[in-house]
């Protein structure tokens, strides 16, 4: 069963070099160095290469030749977004711009004091949106795995400025569930990914890009359980300095309890999500950042 362990690749020295480059030379130079780093991973990370190649070749139906190039672009886009995130969170000089389809939905969650759940995917990087969306007057919380290597984490924490978003780490003792519950009670906004699960989580199979894939029920069940509006969100990097955010119209599912009802509603919600995700991936194939065999089950 495909799953993700919570750690991304990359060494401490690499991070130090990039943080220093961003600080003293800016994003342009960092992107230039990134080209070489990406080429290294392109050659020496055969497992992720295999999965990315198959994604373009088998799932999107691109030729072998195009797929080879697409994998490189995919890695490069991923690296750029990581650098953008460090640059933004550290307060280094940048001039990012963005536009937002559906921003009013988030404002409504704030002004109507309903709070809400934003379900994203490993397509683009919604975490960046949190830092660019300071004009939304609601507290934004991002639920995520927090298993990065300690030394890398310490390095990044030392350069990051005070965050405008709150990170809720997913923990084995389930304490994050109680934190989420409190956030919803305070009408806050919660962001979580809906396309990745770890061993032991409940999931449902859907047709996704022409083949069955498993999706975790947990993020979707949050919306049912706490009866909050849910919207599906994506953040796409369209040019070096421009992000485009998307949010679908929020929907409240009036869940009355019961396991049969729960499963029916989950299926309906998740089908909506999978449809949106499929559309977004087809339009932005360079932004697919699940570097493992997503369709294996």
């Amino acid at each position, binding site marked *: 069963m495909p799953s993700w362990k919570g750690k991304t690749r990359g060494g401490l020295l690499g991070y130090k070099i990039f943080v220093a480059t961003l600080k003293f030379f800016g994003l342009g130079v960092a992107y230039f160095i990134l080209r070489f780093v990406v080429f290294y991973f392109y050659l020496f990370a055969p497992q992720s290469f295999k999965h990315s190649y198959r994604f373009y070749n088998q799932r999107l139906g691109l030729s072998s030749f195009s797929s080879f190039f697409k994998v490189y672009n995919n890695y490069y886009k991923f690296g750029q977004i990581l650098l953008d995130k460090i640059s933004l969170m550290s307060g280094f000089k940048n001039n990012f711009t963005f536009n937002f389809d559906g921003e009013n939905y988030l404002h409504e969650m704030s002004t109507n004091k309903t709070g809400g759940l934003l379900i994203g995917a490993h397509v683009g990087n919604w975490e960046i949106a949190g830092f660019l969306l300071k004009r939304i007057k609601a507290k934004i919380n991002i639920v995520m795995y927090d298993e990065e290597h300690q030394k890398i984490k310490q390095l990044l924490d030392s350069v990051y400025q005070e965050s405008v978003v709150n990170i809720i780490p997913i923990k084995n003792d*389930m*304490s994050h569930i109680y934190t989420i*519950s409190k956030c919803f009670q305070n009408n806050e906004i919660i962001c979580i990914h809906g396309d990745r699960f770890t061993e032991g989580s*409940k999931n449902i199979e859907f047709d996704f890009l022409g083949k069955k894939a498993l999706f975790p029920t*947990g993020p979707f069940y949050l919306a049912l359980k706490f009866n909050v509006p849910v919207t599906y969100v994506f953040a796409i990097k369209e040019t070096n300095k421009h992000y485009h955010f998307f949010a679908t119209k929020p929907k409240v599912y009036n869940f009355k309890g*019961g*396991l*049969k009802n729960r499963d029916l509603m989950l299926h309906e919600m998740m089908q909506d999500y999978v449809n949106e995700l499929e559309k977004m991936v087809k339009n932005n194939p360079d932004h697919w950042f699940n570097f493992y065999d997503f369709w294996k089950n």
Partner: protein
Amino acid sequence: MEKQEIIKTINAFLIDEFELDEAKLTPEANLRDDLEIESLDFVDIVVVIEKEFGFKVKGEEMVNVRNLGDLYNYIIEKVNQKE
């Protein structure tokens, strides 16, 4: 509080909240696999425990609760400690 009373209270909640068949509620029943209760549902279970049995549940104590028998035993132990 009697053991049977604790079991009755928990079972009544599970039947009411999750529309579970009473015959499924055996001590061996795995909460996730047999009863299809998800980790999120523990929020409700904790609320009921705290309200009905009058003690504070710590998240880490629930990590080892895998089947219904574990849940009964956990509550019985806590209630006995309190008394």
